[in-house]
C-alpha cells in the first residue's frame, strides 16, 4: 500500500488573485466546507446531547461516567468503523453482529477443546473472521446480488452455525470458561484490560478504538485505497473505467469488517470468559445506525471515519444518559428513539445549512 497520491500541496493555487471581495468568499467557503464535512453534524449533535445530560443528571458529569460511556461507545464504534468504510464503498453487512460472536466462539472452543494456549484460538478466530468477510465479498462480486441479500444469507447461516457447532463441541449453548487456561491473562491484557488514566479506570478498547479511528481516517483520506473506497461507492462503473480494482476493494472492505468482528469478539471473550452462542443478533443494525448518525450515506460514496465514531459515542451517551438521568425505565426505548432522531435531525439541518447557497 503506498501513500504517494493526494498529498495536499501547501502552496496556494497560483491562479487566485488576492483582491478583497474574493478573499471574503474564499473565507466563507472555508467555513462552509468545514460544515459540509460528514462528521460535523454528528459532532454538533454529540455536544448537544452531552450538554443536555450534563444539565439533567448530576452523576453523568463524573469522569468515571464518561469512561463507562466511552466503553460502550468503543465496542460499538470498533465495528461501526469498518462497517462505515464498507458503507462508503456502497455495501452493507448484515452479518457483522453475529460475526463478532462467531469469532469469540471460535477462539474459545478451539483453545478449550484442543487444550491449546488461548493465543492459538485467537489466531484461528482471526483466520475464520477474515474468511467470513472474504466469502461475503467474493459472493457479492461473483453473483452481483445486492449485499443486503448476500449478507442476510450469511447472517442467518452464521447464527445457525454459532448454535449448532457450540452444541456439538460443548454439549451446551454457551462455551466453557477459559479463564484458567494458559495465555488467557496476556490476551486479556491486550483485549480487555483496564488502564488507569489520571485516576480513572479506562477500558483498553477505548484506546484501541481511538487508535483505529486515527488509522482509518488516514487510510480513507490520504491513501490510494481510501480513494478507491469513495470511488467504488460513488460510481462503480466509472471507477472501473479509470482503473480502480472494484472487486478487490469490495472484498477487502468485507474482510475489514471481519477484522473488526474478530477484534470485538476477542474483547467479549476475554472480558466475559465465556460466550453465549445466541449473542450479537441485532447489533448489525446498531453499527449501521452509528455510521448513519455519523454522516455516512445509505447510498454510499460519502462519509468519514470520525463521524461514525462520534455516532457510536452519541449512542453510548444516550443509552447511559437515560439511566443516569433516572427516567422511568419503561420509557427507555422511546427516549432512546427520540434522542437519536433529534441528533439525526440536527445533523441533517447542519448539513443542509452548509450546502445551501
Amino acid at each position: 500500500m503506498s501513500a504517494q497520491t493526494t498529498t495536499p500541496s501547501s502552496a496556494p493555487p497560483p491562479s487566485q488573485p488576492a483582491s478583497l471581495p474574493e478573499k471574503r468568499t474564499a473565507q466563507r467557503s472555508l467555513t462552509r466546507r468545514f460544515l459540509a464535512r460528514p462528521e460535523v453534524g454528528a459532532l454538533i449533535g454529540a455536544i448537544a446531547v452531552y450538554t443536555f445530560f450534563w444539565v439533567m443528571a448530576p452523576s453523568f458529569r463524573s469522569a468515571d461516567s464518561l469512561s463507562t460511556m466511552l466503553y460502550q461507545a468503543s465496542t460499538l464504534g470498533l465495528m461501526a468503523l469498518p462497517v462505515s468504510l464498507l458503507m462508503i464503498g456502497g455495501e452493507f453487512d448484515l452479518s457483522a453482529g453475529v460475526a463478532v460472536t462467531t469469532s469469540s466462539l471460535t477462539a474459545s472452543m478451539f483453545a478449550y477443546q484442543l487444550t491449546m494456549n488461548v493465543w492459538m484460538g485467537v489466531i484461528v478466530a482471526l483466520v475464520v473472521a477474515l474468511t467470513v468477510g472474504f466469502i461475503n465479498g467474493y459472493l457479492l462480486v461473483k453473483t452481483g446480488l445486492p449485499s443486503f441479500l448476500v449478507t442476510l444469507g450469511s447472517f442467518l447461516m452464521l447464527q445457525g452455525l454459532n448454535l449448532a457447532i457450540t452444541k456439538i463441541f460443548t454439549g451446551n449453548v454457551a462455551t466453557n470458561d477459559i479463564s484458567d487456561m494458559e495465555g488467557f491473562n496476556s490476551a486479556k491484557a491486550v483485549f480487555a484490560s483496564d488502564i488507569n488514566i489520571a485516576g480513572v479506570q479506562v477500558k483498553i478498547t477505548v484506546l484501541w478504538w481511538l487508535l483505529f479511528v486515527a488509522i482509518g481516517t488516514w487510510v480513507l483520506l490520504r491513501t490510494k485505497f481510501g480513494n478507491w473506497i469513495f470511488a467504488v461507492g460513488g460510481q462503480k462503473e466509472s471507477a472501473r473505467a479509470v482503473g480502480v480494482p472494484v472487486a478487490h476493494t469490495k472484498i477487502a472492505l468485507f474482510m475489514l469488517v471481519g477484522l473488526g468482528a474478530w477484534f470485538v469478539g476477542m474483547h467479549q471473550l476475554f472480558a466475559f470468559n465465556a460466550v453465549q452462542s445466541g449473542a450479537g443478533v441485532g447489533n448489525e443494525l446498531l453499527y449501521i445506525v452509528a455510521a448513519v448518525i455519523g454522516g455516512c450515506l445509505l447510498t454510499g460514496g460519502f462519509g468519514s471515519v470520525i463521524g461514525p465514531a462520534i455516532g457510536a459515542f452519541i449512542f453510548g451517551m444516550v443509552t447511559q444518559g437515560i439511566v443516569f438521568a433516572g427516567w422511568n425505565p419503561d420509557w427507555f426505548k422511546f427516549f432512546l428513539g427520540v434522542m437519536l432522531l433529534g441528533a439525526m435531525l440536527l445533523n441533517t439541518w447542519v448539513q443542509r445549512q452548509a450546502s445551501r447557497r
Partner: protein
Amino acid sequence: MDKSPSARRTALGAVCAAGLLLTVAGCASSTGGAKAEQSTTGVTAGHANTPRMTIAMVTHAAQGDTFWDIVRKGAEAAAAKDNVKLVYSSDPVASNQANLVSNAINQKVDGLAVTLSTPDAMRDVVAKTEAAGIPVAAFNQGEDYWKQMGAIGYFGSDEKIAGQALGDRLNSMGAKHDLCIIHQQGSVALEDRCAGVKSTFKGTTDILYVNGADMPSVQSMLTAKLRQDPSIDQVTALGAPIALTAISSISDAGSKAKVNTFDLNKDAAAAIKNGKIEFSVDQQPFLEGYLAVDSLWLYKVNGNTVGGGQPTLTGPAFVDSSNIAKVYQYAQNGTR
C-alpha cells in the same frame, strides 16, 4: 493493496503453516481446557420396554438460551428412559409456535408437551391437538390456563411466587435497595419475576432494562445505574449470564452491591461456590422437561395424571452456599 491475490494467498498459507507448526511445537495449555474436564455423566435411568412412541415438545424458546438447553436435556433424559422418540422444536414468535404445534398434529405424534407463554395464540391449536386424540401436557408457562385448555398436567414454577420468595429472602438479609435487571423487554415471565420481588421486598425495588444479546452494553448500562444510585445494595439478575456480568459491573462502579439471580448455569454455580453470587432461585428446568415427557408417557401406558388437578411446582428452589456442594457437579454437567 497492490499485492497480487496469489501473493496474498501465499502469505496466508505461510501464517497458517506457522500456526500449525507452533501447535505441534507445544502451544498446548497445561491448565484448564477440555483435558482438565472431568468425565461427565448425564442423568440416565434404565430403559422402558413399552411400545415406541413419539412425543413432540414445542416451546417458545429463543435459540441458544442456556435455560432451555437444560429443559431439553431433561426431556431427552425422560425420552431415553421411556422409549420415546422426542421431536423438539421452538420459536419465540407466538404464531410460529402455533404452527409448530400444527406440524406435530400432522406428524400424528402420540403426545404433545407445550409451553403456554402466549395462551391466546395457543388456545385453538391446543384444542385441535386434543380433538386429534393427542394428550397435551403444559409446562414452564401457562399455570392459569392449562386446565381450561384441557391439558393433563402442568409442570413449572410460578414466576411471581419465585419473585416473592426472592423478595422475602432479601428482607431476611436486611437489604434496603434492590435493582432488578430485565434483559428482554416485554417478556411476561421476566416482568412477573420483578413484580414478585417488588410485592414482598420491603425496601425499594428499581427496574433496569438491558439488551441481553449484547453483553458490553449490559455491563456498561449496569455500571451507569450503580454509579447513578449508590444506595443500591442488591442486584437481581433474571438469568445466570447476566448475573456473571453484574459481578464485573459492580467492581467497575466501585459499588458494594451483592448479586443474586434466577436460574443457574455452570459458571453461575461456580460463582455461588466462591461467594461471588449470594444465591440463585432455581426453577429446576431439567425437571420441567423431564416431567412433561414422563407424564405423557405415564398417561399413554397407564392412564395416570400427575398433580391431582393442581399445577406441579418445580420451584422455587434456592441454591446458595449451604447446598451448592451438592448442586455444583450437576450444574457442571449441564443438568441443573
